[in-house]
């Protein structure tokens, strides 16, 4: 059964470690928020109204037109244990909000996990596309194609002046949130990151940590996304994000070059110490793991470490999370037990050849 597969394997299409600028941009995500005209938003919907939305969306998702995009499996939140939901959150396939707050929430997952369509989250429909590397336009095109199929079959809430109508006023207009996950260790090490983050906030973009809405960047991973959705076209939103991300990428490359030239020994020492720690540690907390894995990732990108792939690191991003560790163990674990399992998993993955 394929739900089992979504649960068991940490692997998703976005982790490939390929794609343009994959040394800095780990993945690209695009989300499109849509609602149905004749139904109250999920916040006010009755159970039967919410169920109706789930059925309508599922019907389109399994139609012939959608089969050309991919084959989708529907998973209802009420079928899942809290731990299973948590695994899907850690894999970024569903939002914490869908897992925790939704009534009659469901998700339609494509086989390679590059598309997930959430139903009855804050909005009736949220189409999410995930791609490896820096692929903003590609993600928008893929998402927009799915959006078109839904629109042919469902009556969307759309208003000439306000655009696509959403439950939250922060999403109205285009309803799109495009984001890139950036690995910026050199900008952090050279202490330029705060200056850059401040500048970003002034150009209508926002930075978040890796997991969800409000967290600090752990492991030097930053999620950069657009904040404005109204009054800018999708292509402007995407090209704006693209050009800002591109500038950050260039600055990160510059900072890496600077560190390689001016503090080569210190840099190698830091990277190799982290690598050594992970190869031998018997217990490691999630925050330390994230930081050390960031060092190893940088080591790979700079050619200092050559027997680990970025795919392995991307996989570890997910598989070292608390929910996933417990799912793999088949039982609830204490924090100490998780730290131990985490260390073992990392050891195994890094020394596998």
């Amino acid at each position, binding site marked *: 059964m394929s739900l089992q597969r979504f649960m068991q394997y940490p692997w998703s299409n976005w982790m490939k470690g390929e794609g343009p600028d994959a040394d800095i941009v780990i993945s690209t995500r695009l989300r499109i928020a849509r609602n149905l005209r004749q139904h109250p938003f999920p*916040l*006010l919907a009755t159970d039967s109204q919410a169920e109706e939305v789930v059925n309508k969306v599922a019907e389109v998702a399994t139609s012939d037109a959608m089969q050309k995009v991919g084959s989708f499996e529907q998973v209802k939140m009420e079928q899942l244990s809290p731990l299973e939901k948590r695994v899907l959150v850690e894999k970024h396939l569903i939002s*914490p909000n869908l897992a*925790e707050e939704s009534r009659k929430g469901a998700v339609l997952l494509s086989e390679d996990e590059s598309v997930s369509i959430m139903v009855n989250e804050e909005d009736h429909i949220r189409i999410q596309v995930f791609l490896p590397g820096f692929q903003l336009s590609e993600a928008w095109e893929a998402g927009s194609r799915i959006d078109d199929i839904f629109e042919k079959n469902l009556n969307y809430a*759309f208003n000439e002046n306000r655009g*696509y109508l959403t439950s939250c006023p922060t999403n109205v207009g285009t309803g799109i949130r495009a984001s890139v996950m950036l690995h910026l260790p050199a900008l952090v090490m050279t202490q330029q990151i705060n200056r850059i983050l401040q500048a970003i906030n002034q150009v209508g973009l926002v930075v978040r940590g890796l997991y969800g809405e409000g967290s600090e960047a752990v492991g030097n991973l930053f999620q950069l996304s657009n904040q404005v959705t*109204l*009054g800018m076209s999708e292509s402007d939103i995407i090209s704006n994000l693209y050009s800002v991300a591109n500038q950050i990428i260039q600055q990160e490359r510059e900072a890496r070059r600077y560190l390689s030239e001016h503090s080569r020994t210190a840099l190698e020492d830091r990277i190799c110490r982290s690598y050594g720690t992970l190869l031998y540690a018997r217990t490691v907390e999630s*925050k330390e793991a994230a930081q050390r894995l960031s060092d190893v990732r940088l080591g790979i990108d700079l050619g200092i470490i050559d027997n680990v792939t970025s795919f392995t690191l991307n996989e570890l991003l997910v598989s070292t999370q608390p929910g996933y560790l417990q799912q793999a163990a088949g039982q609830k674990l204490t924090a100490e037990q998780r730290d131990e399992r985490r260390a073992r998993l990392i050891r195994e993955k890094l020394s596998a050849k």
Partner: protein
Amino acid sequence: MNCQECGKRPATLHLTKIVNGEKTENHLCEHCAQEKGHFVQGFGNFSINNLLSGLLNFDPMSKNAAQGAMGNPSTATKPMRCETCGMTYAQFSKSGRFGCSDCYEHFGSKLDPLFRRIHGNTNHVGKVPERTGGQIKIRKELEQLKSTLQQYIATEEFEKAAEMRDRIRALEQKIAQSQ
């Protein structure tokens, strides 16, 4: 640093949220973070909800409306309400969420200052749905062409302007035919 919740265990989760340059920080241990429903490195309690309702309550329009309502009993008895789902503007201000798509219609231009503050804009310029918005699409395209035409006239590129004018005529015919 110790966890701000229990004060006992060291804070290992540092949650930072930046919205419009405003930063809020929370420092929790893993245990308390889980208690509070933070899945991985924190969600839920730091929802945009709270921030938004802050924004909305700050709305000078709604303040004026509230004062007006207090001074004037005739308006006080009739709160602004979406006729379709029944949500009042006050409820919307509190939750930061609309109840249905008609709320946009019923709250009307009262929403302009809010949209301006969040997006710097009040009107949509992007994608238009193919089926439900065929007419809208043509009209938007027409607007676009007209403004391009003005630009060409201003820069005295008359050949291009003539081309625009032909395209505008064709679209106008298309609208006339379908009505």
